[in-house]
């Protein structure tokens, strides 16, 4: 059950204008491994939600785009790491409709529904890291 | 004094091969329609050539499984091929077990002066070959799982036909259980067909869906909502009385969805939406269809 990373792409997100290039980079990687259009759309939409959260709550951060394989699955793993204030109550933040900002509160739970694997860790005052995986046909 | 099975058995390789193949051929379970004699012989000989030299006193005594890796690999290949060709587990297992029988027989015939040694050596060989049987079984099942996975994909592909039943009206009969993977395929096919045909109404017929629980209902609602986002309406038809009962008992709210009991009544409803009328040609008014 080992996950092997085949390629790694690091991008810093510091302003809103970085979002579209980041999405394009995710798309390029997804196209490379022949992900279906629907799964591409889901992945990029999830990425868009998470990168927006990162900008809004932590003023930016670092993203890693990786092409990974596990047994006979191929997919994309995205990591969003920031050094923001952290999320005090993750369970609460994962609920639909919960938002501290003026959004719909669909960001985290919505993103989770769009991908195959979703992991979040957060430490108060240190920052938040979200890792998502979307398999090519998952 | 220990018995050197490697040397002893290698000397008798020809005999082992013949008896092994005869024993396989004698077995009723052998599928001559699936594997030719030549192929069987080639398979078996290759395996013996790999296995016998490894049966040195050291290897057998230590019982270290990893030295037999080349054999395991060969067996895995055979098991996978057999799984895909449709052999039964019994046929596949017999391949290894028949070898064990032959090897132990030969050993017994050769070693006549050392019953204790014979017993111990048989016991060890038994253990090693049983290990192979386990391997062959594991890989066989894995091979079958692959076949099942591929078939599942195929079924998902072919079981969601989108039919254009009228200009602007699509019908999609769903047969079988509606899980989230299936819903995905249904939605994708349906929405793409809506775009391709420019249809404004889709009828989802669920007569072939065995049961509707809250999860299935949720999938249906999702499909309807996605259709509406595209700018088309979605009607669910084929709701049997039992389904209506469970839906209400489970407290599922389908009020946002147009539901009809039969495909015919759904089509009628679609005609109304499109302001179409169907008339008998004998009727005095305007002919067949009036847009």
């Amino acid at each position, binding site marked *: 059950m080992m996950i092997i990373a085949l390629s790694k792409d690091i991008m810093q997100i510091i302003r809103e204008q970085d979002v579209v290039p980041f999405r394009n980079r995710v798309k390029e990687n997804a196209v490379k491994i022949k992900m279906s259009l629907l799964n591409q759309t*889901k992945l990029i939409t999830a990425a868009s939600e998470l990168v927006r959260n990162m900008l809004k709550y932590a003023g930016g951060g670092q993203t890693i785009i990786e092409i990974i394989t596990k047994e006979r699955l191929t997919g994309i793993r995205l990591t969003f790491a920031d050094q923001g204030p952290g999320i005090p109550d993750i369970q609460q933040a994962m609920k639909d409709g919960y938002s501290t900002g003026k959004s719909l509160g669909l960001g985290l739970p919505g993103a989770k529904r769009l991908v195959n694997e979703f992991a979040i860790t957060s430490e108060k005052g240190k920052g938040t890291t979200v890792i998502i995986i979307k398999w090519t046909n998952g | 004094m220990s018995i050197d099975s490697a040397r002893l058995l290698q000397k008798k390789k020809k005999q082992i091969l013949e008896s092994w193949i005869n024993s396989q051929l004698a077995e009723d379970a052998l599928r001559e329609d699936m594997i030719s004699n030549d192929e069987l012989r080639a398979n078996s000989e290759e395996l013996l050539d790999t296995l016998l030299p490894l049966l040195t006193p050291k290897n057998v005594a230590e019982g270290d499984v990893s030295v037999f890796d080349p054999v395991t690999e060969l067996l895995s290949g055979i098991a996978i091929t057999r799984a895909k060709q449709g052999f039964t587990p019994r046929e596949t297992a017999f391949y290894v077990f028949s070898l064990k029988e032959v090897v132990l027989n030969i050993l017994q015939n050769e070693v006549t002066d050392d019953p204790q040694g014979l017993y111990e050596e048989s016991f060890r060989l038994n253990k090693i070959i049983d290990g192979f049987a386990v391997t062959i079984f594991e890989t066989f099942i894995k091979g079958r799982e692959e076949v099942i996975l591929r078939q599942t994909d195929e079924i998902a592909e072919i079981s969601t036909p989108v039919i254009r039943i009228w200009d602007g009206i699509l019908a999609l009969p769903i047969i079988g259980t509606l899980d989230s993977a299936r819903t995905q395929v249904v939605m994708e096919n349906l929405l793409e067909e809506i775009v391709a045909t420019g249809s*404004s109404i889709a009828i989802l017929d669920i007569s072939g869906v065995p049961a509707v629980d809250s999860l299935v209902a949720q999938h249906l609602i999702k499909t309807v*909502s996605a259709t509406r*986002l595209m700018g088309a309406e979605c009607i669910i038809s084929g709701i049997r009385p039992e389904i209506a009962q469970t839906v209400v008992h489970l407290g599922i709210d389908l009020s946002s969805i147009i539901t009809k009991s039969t495909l015919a009544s759904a089509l009628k409803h679609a005609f109304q939406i499109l302001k179409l009328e169907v008339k008998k040609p004998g009727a005095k008014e305007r002919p067949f269809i009036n847009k």
Partner: protein
Amino acid sequence: MDKIPILRMGHFLLVTIQVDLYDQLALNLESDLVQMVNKTQAKGVLIDISAVSIVDSFMGRIIGNIASMSRILDAQTVVVGMQPAVAITLIELGLPLTGVHTALNVERGMTLLKEKILIGDYDEDDETGDDDNSAE
């Protein structure tokens, strides 16, 4: 700063979004459009998103806002040409855009708008517009 052009066609405003929007651009579109509805007294707004490959919750909210704001200003909004993959993703995301009218393409959208406005003329009370289609 980039701007999304808003075309005026009689009583209607037509917006075609050709690029993937970043947030500020979307916010600008929202305010420009509402200003424009007020200035031109438009009765309908048609937003063509057929070239948009990603609609996330932010974009979804902007679309919803435009529809609600226009409705207050007595104009109907129709979103046309949504890609199938975008529609499915929005549903999974949990954003069915209830309250926004949709149509398959610009032509259908125009027809729908005309119908809506006609109905509105006869029945001033009908302001809910909760059903997504002109159905029936």
